[in-house]
């Protein structure tokens, strides 16, 4: 079947099977920043934004996003033009192995887009679907607070 979808602001059309999940389609089409961690919707490594809400692409029927707006980590920033979230994650040491980072950053983006000044509880709730075994989350939460501050200041 044909899947028409907007990915990172660009209209795309892919051939997909009706039984496929979005993760497999995205990775096949080269969006390899979307990671495969558990294939069961439990770890958040494959998280993407669909119409600005966070979803685990490994349990999402690919066809269900027809006509929608999908944002992957590739749509957030590039190595030469890091998004403030990406820069802050690096500055605060919120990245170790980096495997959970794309999903984590998208989760933070979804949060900050609707709440520019989240408290610690709200941050923890927004990230509760993104497993990280390296950092103990301490520096991630710190980075979110700092990024929120700088995004408010710049008014991004």
């Amino acid at each position, binding site marked *: 079947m044909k899947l028409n979808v907007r990915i990172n602001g660009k209209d795309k059309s892919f051939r997909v099977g009706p039984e496929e999940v979005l993760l497999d389609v995205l*990775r096949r089409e080269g*969006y*390899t*920043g*979307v*990671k*495969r*961690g*558990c*294939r*069961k919707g*439990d*770890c958040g*490594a494959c998280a993407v934004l669909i119409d600005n809400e966070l979803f685990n692409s490994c349990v999402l029927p690919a066809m269900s996003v027809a006509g929608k707006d999908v944002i*992957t*980590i*590739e749509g*957030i*920033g*590039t*190595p030469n033009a*890091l998004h403030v979230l*990406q*820069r802050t*994650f*690096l*500055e*605060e*040491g919120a*990245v*170790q*192995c*980096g*495997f*959970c*980072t*794309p999903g984590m*950053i998208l989760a933070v983006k979804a949060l900050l887009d609707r709440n520019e000044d989240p408290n610690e509880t709200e*941050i*923890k*709730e927004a*990230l*509760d*679907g*993104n*497993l*990280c*075994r*390296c*950092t*103990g*989350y*301490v*520096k*991630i*939460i710190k980075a979110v607070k700092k990024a929120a501050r700088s995004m408010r200041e710049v008014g991004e």
Partner: protein
Amino acid sequence: MSGDKLKVVGFSEMKVDGRGLVTGKAKYTADWVENDMLHMKILGSPHAHARIKGIDTTRAWNLPGVVEIFTHENVPRIPHTTAGQGYPEPSPYDSFIVDRKVRFVGDRVAMVVAESETIAKEALGLIEVDYELLPAVLDLEEAMKEGAPVIHDEEEAHVIIPVPYDPSRNLVARVDMEIGDMEEGFSRADVIVEDSYYAHYAQHCPVEPHISLAIPDPDGRILIVTSTQVPFHVRRITAQALGIPVKRIRVIKPRIGGGFGTKQEILLEPAVALAALKIGRPVICELTRKEEFISSRTRHPIKTVLRTGCTREGEITAVDMHCLSNTGAYGSHGLTVVCNCGSKVLPLYKCDNVKFLGEAVYTNLPVPGAYRGYGATQAAFAMECNMNEMARKIGMDPLEFRKKNHIGIGDTSPIFEALGEGGEGVPQSVESCGLDQCIDRGAHEIGWKEKWGGNDGDKKIKRGIGEACLMQGSSIPKIDMGAASIKMNDDGSFNLLIGATDIGTGSDTILAQIAAEELGCRTEDMIVYSSDTDMTPFDVGAYASSTTYLTGTAVRKTAAEVKKQIIKVGAEMLGVSEEEVMVEDRAIISSETGESVSFKDVALRSLYMCDQHQIMATASHITEKSPPPFAAHFVEVEVDTETGEVKCLKYVTGTDCGQAINPQLAEGQTEGALLNGLSYALTEEYIFNDKGQMLNPNFKNYRIYRTTDLPEIVSFLVTTHEPTGPYGAKSVSEIGINGALPAISNAIYDAVGVRLTKPPFTAEKVLQALDNKNKF
């Protein structure tokens, strides 16, 4: 040296590979796209112990898209160990790529290679296996009894170093040691504490599962791209398992999505390499999360029986520790983990009479391997609970008790020499120790003085404070080797080539910092390339808390040699002698005139203009010592006396890792380790049925901590200077995981007066303990 002001080391520089990681551009194994790639899936055994009488693959072969099927009938049967250790490996050669017998639920029966993962998976379901079921042994004490089922009855199983190994009794390893006079020690004791502690199964849960890709090349060589902590051991052991020369294999480690020990194991590489060589096409294999739980590696469950005695004044008079380790169906890391129970725990406290017995036995359960903490986690649990109990019994503050007894600067322990990793150890004395500062500041942060020993009266929810003191090591002395090469480029930048393996820890970054500090340039001048067996020098890999201390020193030596070569050219250019210059901020400066030439000037001259040569050096390092990092952990918990629920409110960790090369990365190591330890202590658990099958192999039912489970966390570093480490550094990566088990157990005791010895400390167990207490 210590008086010099550091310019790069000691600063929290950004990770050198960071930009790729945060943008999703960094390549992990799964992102390494090959044309014409085939997929492998592995058929796991449904039985804990069985002989394969026959395998019928006809139906699987008939499925379109199936390319190859491997079983014990068409795979070379070469005994090896899957433990990614140095040669000669201390683990028994008891594994085959695939065998005619299965020894745990999930053990390998067959491998299917197909055009897609879906087809390969479907084909697994079409393989018909005729099993002869054998009695299984699921309990480690049962496994030691006479007449127990023999798990490794094949004649090939053997060890290649002279250590006790008797598969006919399921005995994988035995190590013992005794110093002083135990009888005299216990007779002098006013108080004796004895208890049994049961550290349990757990999985590492890296977010990236095991994944390996093998790519054949036209010259008959094979490239293995793999998620590993030990690329050089992968090369050697894969060659061995396939019966081909090492020179035919190249291993590249791309970015790795976490390891924690489970990727110090050669699991998938021989299988994909075998397939790629036979078929002549690239073959990839990625474990599912379920396979990761049941058939990769786990922590060794260890029963520790610990008897300790002390005088009323707080002198420890005797320590008798017996560790019985369950190594599951294969003996990977069996000997060394149980050795570390003693060698990384017993030296912490001064005592003249110490006895240690470590035994490891086979069972028909999932296979443990290396796991962050590596035996210290299991035995420190026992030790720190006993320390707490002894202090309470003599009416001494447990912190005072620790301070009175712990090893410090200038002290040595006979244990260091008597017990190492696999056999005898190396004598050493402690040259850096910040444990007292860790204890004092940690006690302040948790509010020890105000809260410890407090009484909540008849409140239903009670609070308690617990503590633990810890040590680990830094590399395996006289065994592990790390090496580095540094080469200067036209613009004064450098290639830093290292075998060391950054699995997310940041070792590429801290090694670049060490090189830059020594050379007198900046981290950004170092182009780091690591872990490619064709291109980089040897390194044992990422384990045993070794990279910073061991490879860090190799890098420093290499940089010092390159610096000499730079100075030689620079001094010539300045027209002064080599003694009359100093190196600072990418330049060679004449001490006399202040005149300078830049690194770039030196590079251009040496490469193009005069006496042309490549400024370059290689150096390697083995350590004589394994200086312990130290840590003190504190925790505050809330215990619900009606339901037994334990909630961790606050966790404080203070760590002495010497001079942190990159404080932010070092803190990150301690924070990640402590949360893993906490999750292990409170929720993580393998639930087995009576057939040895794990019932909860997924993140829905095996709960690892999420953001919403976090207590308040305070982590700090205490800076000391280890004279034998690079810029005073020791290790940091493992120690932080060892504290939660004893600290939580001690805190529960402080809150409600019951001693929990069987983690995880679930509500059910706590309530049971409270009920038992109330009965008496």
